[in-house]
């Protein structure tokens, strides 16, 4: 390390040889060595890092382009996967606005005078999420749907210190896993509420619920796409035991489904991807978490509030920070610092464009596509709806044979088929979960049906 590597190596490094000369002179040094003299020789790296040789912009574009040729994806293929992440339409205006670098190259708005843009956007985000969930207050974002749910379960524990959380088995299996990981160390016990006809079994819940129960968690629509019934009744049961009722919800569905706050949920969480965020193989998008105002001091994550400045002008600031790690350290409601603000901004822009009407249309388009697909697929021999319960835009089918074989077959025709449930639900052999959105075309569904039909006819 005798010599400076800096100079004109990279377009990202502005220091010229003369700059370095001048700076060394000012510092009275003559080599980088002197600035790093506090690093003991034993922990120095005495060789160059062994990394692939540097590439230029055109080479990277070509290299990554070649790699991505190996991916199959929506646009090149029809995709019928869902499970919390959906192939939804993202108006180009969302990308356009979110790529304004005054938004994406800023950091957490610690200094309100120079961050009103981000702050007001978060306040507006909190407002629309409160509207969608029917609750009083939303945090500024969590990492994703699963961690938002885990945060909610931890939050319930902080509210009532009870040891047991009851999670419906109809919750996304990954979300249940993350809740387990998150709560594993703090001694919370996670129990699973069994299923009945593809819905959370209320009788089982009734039996499990007691004064040790911290919270009850249900997903709606649940992992099978079914709309959970009798949520108000559940809320009453849960509240009767002094527990908290948590709903993990799909945000698009809130355009037509009864909002969690209205059915009596205390906390609502969910995955934000469907609201204007690209799939990106699962991230980054964001998670949301909203609650009633009485629990506000237990809320994990940042919050923005409206106030006035010293001249009386309305403005926005980070607020109620005494919940957070940078103030409360180990006593904070959570460790979250960097969240997923940009994903939340995208959702705000998306919702601003869609409005209540647009959101409703998205639901109706998606559900009518699902209806059409269901009507046609279930006419094929040996294909049935797995559950009788009403669904919105996703449903599970019972196939006569394992869906893995069908999926490989479909892939040859540029179709990425449904999700085989058996891996996560051994009890549902040959079950296949399919999702439909406002982007699914009739042609895509017809082709799917045709291919399934062919596969069935060739089956042994």
């Amino acid at each position: 390390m005798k010599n400076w590597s800096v100079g004109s190596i990279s377009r990202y490094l502005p220091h010229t040889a003369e700059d370095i000369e001048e700076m060394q002179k000012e510092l009275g040094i003559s080599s980088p060595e002197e600035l790093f003299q506090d690093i003991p020789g034993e922990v120095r790296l005495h060789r160059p890092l062994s990394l692939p040789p540097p590439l230029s912009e055109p080479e990277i574009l070509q290299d990554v382009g070649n790699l991505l040729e190996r991916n199959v994806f929506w646009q090149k293929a029809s995709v019928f996967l869902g499970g919390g992440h959906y192939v939804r339409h993202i108006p180009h205006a969302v990308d356009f606005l979110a790529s304004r670098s005054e938004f994406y190259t800023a950091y957490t708005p610690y200094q309100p005078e120079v961050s009103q843009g981000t702050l007001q956007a978060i306040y507006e985000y909190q407002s629309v999420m409160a509207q969608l969930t029917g609750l009083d207050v939303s945090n500024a974002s969590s990492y994703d749907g699963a961690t938002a749910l885990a945060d909610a379960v931890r939050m319930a524990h902080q509210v009532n210190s009870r040891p047991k959380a009851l999670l419906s088995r109809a919750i996304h299996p990954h979300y249940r896993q993350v809740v387990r990981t998150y709560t594993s160390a703090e001694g919370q016990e996670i129990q699973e509420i069994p299923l009945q006809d593809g819905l959370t079994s209320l009788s089982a819940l009734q039996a499990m619920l007691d004064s040790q129960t911290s919270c009850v968690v249900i997903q709606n629509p649940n992992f099978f796409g079914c709309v959970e019934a009798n949520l108000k009744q559940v809320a009453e049961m849960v509240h009767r035991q002094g527990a908290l009722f948590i709903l993990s919800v799909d945000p698009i569905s809130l355009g037509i489904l009864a909002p969690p706050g209205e059915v009596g949920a205390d906390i609502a969480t969910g995955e934000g991807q469907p609201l204007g965020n690209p799939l990106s193989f699962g991230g980054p998008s964001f998670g949301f978490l909203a609650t009633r105002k009485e629990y506000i001091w237990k809320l994990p994550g940042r919050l923005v509030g409206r106030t006035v400045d010293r001249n009386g002008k309305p403005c926005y600031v980070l607020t109620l920070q005494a919940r957070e790690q940078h103030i409360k350290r180990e006593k904070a409601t959570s460790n979250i610092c960097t969240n997923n603000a940009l994903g939340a901004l995208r959702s705000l822009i998306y919702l601003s464009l869609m409005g209540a009407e647009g959101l409703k249309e998205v639901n109706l388009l998606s559900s009518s596509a699902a209806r059409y697909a269901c009507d046609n697929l279930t006419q094929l021999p040996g294909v049935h709806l797995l559950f009788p319960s009403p669904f919105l835009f996703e449903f599970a089918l019972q196939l006569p044979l394992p869906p893995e074989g069908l999926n490989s077959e479909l892939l040859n025709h540029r179709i990425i088929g449904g999700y085989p449930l058996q891996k996560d639900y051994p009890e549902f052999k040959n079950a296949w979960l399919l999702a439909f959105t406002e982007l699914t075309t009739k042609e895509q569904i017809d082709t799917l049906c045709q291919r399934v039909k062919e596969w069935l006819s060739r089956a042994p």
Partner: protein
Amino acid sequence: MPLEPLIFSYSRKGRKGYSLPRPFHPAPHSIPSESLRTTPPFLPEVNEQDVIRHFVHLSQMNFAVDTGFYPLGSCTMKYNPKLNEIIANLPGIRNLHPLQPVETVQGILQIYSELEKMLCEIFGMDAFTLQPAAGAQGEFTAMLLIRAYFQKKGMKQKNQVIIPDSAHGTNPASARMAGFEVHQIPSDARGLVSLHTLQKAVTERTAAFMLTNPNTLGLFEQDILKIAEILHNVGAQLFYDGANANAILGISRPGDMGFDVIHTNLHKTFSTPHGGGGPGAGPVGVKSHLIPFLPVPRILHDDNGYHLSEDFPDSIGRMKSFFGNTGVLVRAYVYIRELGAEGLKAASQAAVLNANYLLHRLKEAYQVPYPGFCKHEFVLSAEKQKRESGVRGLDIAKRLMDFGFHPPTVYFPLIVKEALMIEPPETESLEQVKKFADALLQIAVEAKETPDVVKNAPHTTEIQRPDEALAARKPDLAFPSPYSQKSGEIGWN
């Protein structure tokens, strides 16, 4: 920049900002009415142009790396290369569904796998997981790994984590979430870990020590090998908070310092944009003994290509809905591929050079609590100014806005009074650093001669010194507000 009304103020019934196809099968869904909304949500109904203008206006109210120098200490606000943005938005990345079969995602899995390997080399670790969504989640993951490790060994007594008082708040919070008791130890007069104090604090109950190196004062923990020894002697693990890695790329590696587990902030060290508060990515690297506990899924590679496997019985489990923050990971991958070994080292050298140059220029005017060469950042104290004329660190921070700069981090680390934590990343030119030095020097003069100018700063921003007490006393967290009577009123302006 004048105030911008709330988006709701543009809303009129019958306006729309969307464009959707007509249904091809106008069948009603079968959902019973008791499951449905009775009233539509109160969402803005706005035409596209007004949505565009609203958010363009909001963006104009932000300071950002793309608008100027952002010396926010501990945050490494380096330039976010534009190339990385386009690549993360290629359809082959953007449009991948996370549940797709592995044979359809070989390209992205290869990028992941290569990134893991490159991070192992850069940090001197044996394996990496890319799953954590940010630094804090990385810390939490690491603490869960340590917990699982000791549980596997049957060492339940290992229930305490030691943390220096200069540590970032996420460290104790993460340790606590992983079920550990937190024991804080004071830094010594050098601003470093006192071996003596550490030795005394360490017991059989010690599970881990969490350390940033260089630490949050911007100082390298020179005794790091001895620190590691003290910890390892009691069978404890050494955790590295990678937030400050921008000082040491290609120069020194946590793996070689004795760290057992580390996290790294791709959104700091590896140039991915901060997004106004996220997303980030906090990959965690481990030495071999911790590999069995890494979160699932993990990437495996064999003759048939790449796989995602969950078949690790000792794993702590899953940390996120899906694999990781792909968009962020890809940006960091591209950054490393473009800079290469020499470029990364050059970046660290220039960052450290910038910091020392700036510190040198400022050390007469401001109190330097821990003198000597710093690494990529340093902490000044405004104690002198406060004493002499009542000008506080926050006042100086606000005054910098009038000079066109983003303020540094203030009041962190907690062990420095009136702290100003300044990080001038390598992507800032000497001219820029000089201008910033000149501004702070002028403010030091102002603090003496015309202290009110500083105390009443900022003078040039549209909004000045918001009433934060009011915000907390009467929380207004949504519009229409469930807290206020004024909920019928829309925006201002």
